[in-house]
């Protein structure tokens, strides 16, 4: 337990969260002041440094967590005691998610230096980016259901407006409005499921909920609670009947924000679903519904992705399919399956982030998003095209990329738990998805049909994509460090529940 002033706590909040919140608060002011004075680029440097500082402090928090005997760090802000008071309960899984979010956030902030150059209102852009990362970090660290809800709304509000950021065109506004309506409805269902949980147990603390409800037999009201939770978290994590906002919202957002949305926001929805389901239900109860949803999501998203002509829309449908693969790991109920899920979360954030960023460079230079009109661009922009190829190979699960490692673990866990049909469905879908990835690759490197003028993208944008591509290949041939962190995270979720409950000693 941490109650005194250490390096990892600022103002009674865990320091990554405090850095991000205060940084986001000061960003508009710094942007305004430095623009009046005439200094340029200060706000971009401020945003990038706030996000990197948060990443460093997450590492320090991780070192402190390693020293803790139970494996759970309980941070009590303002000196309040948990039952009744809100708290932060941090274990290895929270830091894994926080680290992935901050890492992708730093890369996206550096990429936005050049991508968002001619656009106005940049103070608000960087402030909202930092608030979105702060919201996701808060969701990962929350120890109380209502704290999770408050940070959930912080992340959602920032993402609604970042989708509709380029408001001069009609398409982002329409996409942003549809996204807002569906996601706000899901927030209301989340609040409703919180009220049912409160009614049944009298508390909203995760540890106390787990101690009370885990192991209870299935009654009709628990099934109602399960459905409301699936609706509440499922809209944000793009499970198939509830995914319809995604193919409109992700293409119309600016490319770095598409990378952030596809890379981490939908995975945060999956993290919330996993955390709550594993804490309050035993895995045998939800094995069948979640596997059915996984197969439905994978299959339908791959079929729809085949029909797309727009490159970013195709990548958006591919995100939905990857969420289906991750649900296989959630349905398995073992710590090996959860390890596959969260390893795939990190790998997918790298791969899909790289796909959106490098295709964003291509679209930024050429100005068109149609696959047919991008023919031949690969010969004029070699580096962006090579990094895009590496990300597509990773998404399809080709060996020697990290996508292969995580998909192998996911399908293996499905076989080990006794549901081989899930693994067969997954492998078939994976092979099926290479069809449309290859179609995009073929279009990019074929002979140019129309008159296209494209230079290589600016140096900062290229260097970010090259770094991510190198990481994808490196983690594919040497996966041990990533697997070790993911195993620690998954053991904290599945095997360590008794310590999680005991840390909130009441």
């Amino acid at each position, binding site marked *: 337990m941490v109650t005194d002033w250490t390096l990892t706590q600022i103002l009674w*909040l865990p320091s990554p969260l405090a850095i991000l*919140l205060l940084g*986001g*608060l000061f960003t*508009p002011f710094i942007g305004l002041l430095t623009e009046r004075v005439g200094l340029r680029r200060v706000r971009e440097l401020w945003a990038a440094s706030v996000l990197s500082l948060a990443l460093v402090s997450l590492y320090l928090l991780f070192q402190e967590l390693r020293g803790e005997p139970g494996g759970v760090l309980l941070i009590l*802000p*303002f000196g*309040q*005691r948990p*039952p*009744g*008071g*809100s*708290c*932060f309960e941090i274990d290895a899984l929270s830091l894994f998610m926080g680290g992935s979010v901050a890492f992708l956030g730093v890369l996206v902030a550096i990429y936005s230096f050049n991508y968002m150059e001619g656009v*106005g*209102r940049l103070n*608000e*852009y960087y*402030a*909202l980016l930092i*608030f979105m990362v*702060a919201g996701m970090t*808060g969701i990962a660290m929350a120890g109380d259901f*209502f*704290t999770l809800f*408050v*940070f959930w*709304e*912080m992340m959602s*509000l*920032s993402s*609604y*407006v970042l989708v*509709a*950021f380029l*408001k*001069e065109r009609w398409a982002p506004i329409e996409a942003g409005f549809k996204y807002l309506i569906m996601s706000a409805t899901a927030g209301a269902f989340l609040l409703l499921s919180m009220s049912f949980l409160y*009614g*049944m*147990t*009298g*508390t909203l603390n995760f540890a*106390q909920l787990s*101690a*009370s*409800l885990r192991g*209870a037999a299935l*009654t*009709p*009201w628990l099934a*109602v609670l399960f459905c409301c939770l699936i609706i509440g978290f499922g809209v944000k994590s793009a499970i198939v009947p509830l995914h319809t906002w995604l193919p409109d919202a992700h293409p119309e957002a600016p490319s770095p924000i598409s990378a952030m949305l596809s890379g981490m926001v939908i995975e945060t929805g999956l993290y919330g679903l996993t955390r709550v389901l594993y804490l309050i239900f035993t895995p045998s109860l939800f094995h069948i519904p979640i596997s059915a949803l996984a197969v439905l999501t994978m299959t339908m998203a791959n079929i729809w992705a085949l029909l797309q002509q727009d490159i970013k829309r195709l990548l958006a449908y591919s995100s939905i399919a990857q969420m289906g693969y991750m649900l296989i790991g959630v349905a398995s109920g073992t710590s090996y399956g959860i390890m596959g899920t969260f390893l795939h979360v990190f790998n997918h954030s790298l791969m899909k982030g790289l796909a959106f960023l490098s295709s964003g460079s291509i679209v930024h230079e050429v100005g068109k998003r149609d696959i047919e009109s991008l023919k031949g661009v690969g010969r004029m922009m070699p580096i962006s095209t090579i990094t895009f190829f590496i990300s597509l190979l990773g998404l399809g699960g080709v060996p020697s990329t990290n996508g292969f490692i995580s998909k192998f673990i996911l399908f293996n866990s499905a076989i080990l738990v006794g549901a081989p049909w899930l693994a067969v469905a997954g492998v078939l879908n994976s092979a099926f998805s290479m069809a449309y990835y290859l179609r995009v690759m073929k279009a990019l490197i074929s002979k140019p049909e129309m008159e296209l003028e494209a230079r290589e993208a600016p140096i900062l944008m290229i260097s970010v994509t090259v770094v991510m591509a190198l990481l994808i290949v490196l983690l594919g041939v040497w996966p041990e460090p990533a697997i070790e962190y993911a195993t620690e995270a998954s053991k904290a979720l599945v095997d360590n529940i008794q310590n999680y409950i005991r840390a909130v000693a*009441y």
Partner: protein
Amino acid sequence: MKPIWSRLGSAASAVILATLLLLLWLAAMEPFPILRYAPREATRSLISSSPFEGIASGVSVFLWEKRALDITAQAFVIVAAIVCCLALLKPEEGEGP
């Protein structure tokens, strides 16, 4: 021949209505398990309801003493909402009112 959208819409409305009727039937058959799964020890801080005017001050004391983290986070959510509305409503350079 009704267009497909209104057919889908009425099908979806029928499904929603059916589930809500199912929920109402459940509510009649098995009452909501109020506090059935509550933890053994009495850990909830409750306020007595006899002086009726005392409830409001009791709730506000609880809010500031035990839920200060949520209030801080909510303050930052309000700041984020202000920045959101600024981002949506600021005119671009060159754009008229």
